[in-house]
């Protein structure tokens, strides 16, 4: 285990940023998001969570896929460049770190998404352990250990010192590059912090969520539960939950005519939107209850069916905090699966 005093951490950031793009939780106008590091940026490693999750680094909010040029009846197509340089995402919490493995199962499944794949190949993730969870955190229900994120490098902050431990080859390579800034350390402080944190985790109000119902009952039965209607009755149909969710991966592909070519780009989309499934005047999910059900069925039922029992949720609690009407996956899970508990 290595360490660096937080007081000098800016030097570390500058050193990483000198050779690679570095994304960090940075505060802008009062909110913290993963943004590219620049000198003087207000880095907020203390912030438990960013508004958007770290998935932005691999599956960005919007990205150009290709550009077309037309000339009479002819078309030419030029694919957008994939990321081909290493970059570092620093300060990823354990929940967000887990979300990458959930996203991988979708984006890297055959045929792989080359844009995502390129970013995954070049992205080096430095995880940051949690020591002060919020009441909305429930990652432990998904077997996540927030005191030790599954990342290329894992970091802990304790008492003004950042502890650093490479977990993968990528992480080791990065450590090598910046070894000048790090010094060796024992694991005592980290172990103590982890123990302390684990005690807090046990006290979290949502620490023992019983989700077994969703794995033990047939898809169709859950789908047909009458509670969906009531649960969705006040849903605004906005995209807040999907846009802050680390595992939501729906996207749209759109064309934009710039006047000198047509850009085909993809951007996040939300299955909560009324036009999500609207195609050529046919809409397969006509009402909000259908859309609402789709989102939560996907997270709680379809994902485990398709991906070896893994839920499409990492328990980050973002939707619990951000939903305008305070409806969220926990309420859905408890309403539908409550009697199993």
């Amino acid at each position: 285990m290595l360490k660096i005093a937080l007081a000098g951490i800016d030097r570390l950031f500058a050193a990483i940023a000198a050779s690679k793009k570095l994304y960090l939780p940075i505060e802008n106008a009062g909110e913290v998001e993963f943004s590219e590091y620049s000198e003087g940026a207000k880095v907020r490693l203390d912030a438990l969570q960013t508004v958007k999750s770290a998935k932005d680094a691999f599956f960005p909010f919007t990205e150009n896929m290709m550009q077309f040029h037309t000339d009479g009846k002819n078309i030419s197509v030029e694919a957008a460049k994939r990321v081909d340089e290493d970059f570092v995402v620093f300060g990823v919490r354990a929940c967000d770190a887990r979300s990458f493995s959930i996203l991988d199962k979708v984006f890297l499944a055959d045929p792989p998404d080359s844009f995502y794949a390129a970013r995954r190949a070049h992205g080096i993730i430095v995880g940051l352990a949690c020591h002060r969870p919020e009441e909305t955190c429930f990652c432990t229900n998904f077997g996540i250990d927030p005191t030790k994120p599954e990342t290329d490098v894992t970091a802990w902050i304790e008492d003004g010192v950042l502890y650093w431990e490479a977990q993968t080859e990528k992480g080791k390579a990065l450590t090598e590059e910046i070894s000048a800034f790090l010094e060796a350390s024992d694991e005592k402080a980290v172990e103590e912090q982890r123990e302390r944190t684990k005690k807090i985790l046990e006290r979290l109000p949502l620490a023992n969520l019983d989700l077994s119902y969703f794995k033990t009952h047939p898809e169709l039965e859950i789908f047909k539960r009458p509670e969906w209607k009531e649960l969705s009755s006040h849903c605004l149909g906005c995209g807040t939950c999907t846009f802050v969710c680390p595992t939501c991966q729906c996207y749209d592909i759109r064309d934009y005519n710039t006047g000198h070519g047509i850009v085909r780009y993809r951007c996040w989309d939300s299955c909560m939107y009324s036009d999500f499934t609207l195609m050529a005047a046919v809409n397969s999910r006509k009402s909000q209850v259908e859309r609402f059900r789709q989102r939560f069925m996907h997270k709680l039922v379809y994902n485990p069916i398709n991906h070896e029992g893994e839920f499409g949720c990492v328990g980050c609690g973002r939707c619990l905090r951000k939903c305008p009407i305070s409806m969220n996956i926990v309420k859905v899970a408890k309403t539908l699966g409550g009697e199993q508990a």
Partner: protein
Amino acid sequence: MMKRPEEQIPALGVVTDVRRDTPDVKTFRVVSPEGKKPLEHMPGQCAMLSLPGIGEGMFSITSSPTQEEYMEFSIKKCGHLTSWLHELEPGQMVTIRGPYGNGFPVETELKGKNLLFIAGGIGLAPLHSVINYCRHYRQNYGDIEIIYGSRSMDDLVDIREIQEEWEPEEGLKVHLTIDRPQDGWNGHVGFVPNYVKELNLSLDKTVLICGPPIMIKFTLQNLQELGFSREQVYTTMELRMKCGIGKCGRCNIGSKYVCKDGPVFRFDQLDELPDEY
């Protein structure tokens, strides 16, 4: 199956021929800019066609994989993109990517079976590819029977090919029907589901069915009444797909993705899925 390195970046295609089949269906012949077939596929698979700036859409490949020269798509005018496609003139380039979907199991489950194709309206498009594939590898399949209906005789897609090539072929029976009587029509009149009941079909057939949802529903009901089991019947789902590669999140039916797990399903498989989306 052939796979291009760039799944998400389309190739280019040139529309070499546009044929008007019915008042709202046109068939487009597409080749690569080099004049070859744009991509290889299996019967029942689809491809994404697009006009940059207008949109991208998933369409059944109508031509058979055995057609070496080109690829054909029969497309009904029903929205923004299809309206633009209907305006196309030969020589116009489009973008094309695919093939997508599972296709009909022509080389496995269907092999050696007696086949009954039931199609309504533009629903012939995905079956067209299978029919011609089976005709090409005639020895691999048993009897072939085709029931095809449409609103009127003007709405029968590919009627020329049906009458000139399919009907005269030995071991291949074609039953045409239209919804309402019409001058100049000597054939059968009536809805497809009812026609199915009138035809004295033997139960030793594997059925491939495609058409409007309501037609499929009643045809299936009538087939079951005749004694067909749901395991005997295949259909292909409506094509509400966007990315084509099981990622964008639109085309789920329950836990299945139409674009990856479908669009061809056997009815007993569908029974395990929600009947809504």
